[in-house]
């Protein structure tokens, strides 16, 4: 049913504040965009033929990764389909702000993540609509030194299968889930993640750290519910 091309893209892509993925100034240009005076980033002039060429050669090869990212964010196949489609159509519309030969995957992931936040997150049926700021503030307010380490042994998790890991991952608030997906599943560097998520590298690092602690807690619950022997609870 989701393959009937009836949906009106204009409605979706033209929605609220995003006539653009985020404004070309914010899209990842070459080199270190943080250093660059963004307004000076010139728009590339592509002929129509070049546009299709860039699209097919630089964007389409990432579609499986994009689909997986969308699915892990939305946890719903129909939403993942729509999100990937929206993202690719936006990428095409704003292709002039993409510089050939630069990191297309990061550029696309950033558009997808912004589309997700703008269009999907609100309607997502995530149970505990966790306000990310709250969570992060709570976690960051802990004194780093007194921070607990999760009591879990490598042997207890080594028998977990993909489904169990996926369930544990899905149970994390989406912002924590996102950093783990980007880092561990997609292999982005911290610097790339900072650009994709529009946060400083220090925040990437600390968010990832919290995310992993949360994930390990979930995995520990799993492992112990399956009867692996644990060391004494903390």
């Amino acid at each position, binding site marked *: 049913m989701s*393959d009937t*091309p009836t949906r009106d*893209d204009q409605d979706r892509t033209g929605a609220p504040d995003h006539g653009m993925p985020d404004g070309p100034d914010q899209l990842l240009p070459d080199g270190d965009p943080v250093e660059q005076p963004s307004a000076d980033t010139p728009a590339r002039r592509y002929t*129509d033929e070049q*546009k*299709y060429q860039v*699209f097919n050669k630089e964007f*389409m090869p990432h*579609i*499986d990764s*994009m*689909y*997986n990212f969308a*699915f892990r964010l939305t946890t719903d196949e129909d939403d993942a*389909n729509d999100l*990937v*489609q929206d993202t*690719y*159509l936006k990428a*095409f*519309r704003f292709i002039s702000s993409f510089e050939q030969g630069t990191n297309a995957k990061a550029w696309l992931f950033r558009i997808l993540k912004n589309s997700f936040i703008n269009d999907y997150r609100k309607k997502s049926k995530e149970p505990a609509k966790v306000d990310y700021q709250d969570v992060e503030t709570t976690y960051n307010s802990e004194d*780093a*030194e*007194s*921070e607990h*380490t999760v009591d*879990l*042994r*490598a042997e207890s*998790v*080594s028998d*977990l*299968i*993909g*489904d169990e*890991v*996926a369930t544990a*991952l899905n149970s994390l608030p989406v912002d924590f889930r996102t950093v*783990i997906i980007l*880092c*561990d*599943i997609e*292999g982005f*560097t*911290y610097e790339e993640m900072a650009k994709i998520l529009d946060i400083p590298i220090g925040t990437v*690092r600390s968010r*990832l*750290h919290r995310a*992993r602690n949360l*994930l*390990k807690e979930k*995995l520990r619950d799993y492992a112990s519910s399956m009867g692996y022997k644990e060391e004494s609870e903390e």
Partner: protein
Amino acid sequence: MKEHCSHQADCLKMIQLILDGEATEQQLARLKANLVSCQPCIQMYHLEKEVKELLTKRMEKKCCPDQLVERIKTKILTFS
């Protein structure tokens, strides 16, 4: 061999940086030293490595449905 690590939280952060390929030479050297002398660091290292591998290797990777690929290609042809 140390049974207790006095800066476990920092060691854990360092271990993650190293597994993520984001550590400095200095941090790498420190970890190497810890891995022969500090029991908690050894355990943390194995756990972090195991969890990361679960995520990189054991998660199902889907393929984007062909219909979606076709739909996107069709739609962009009507753009410009």
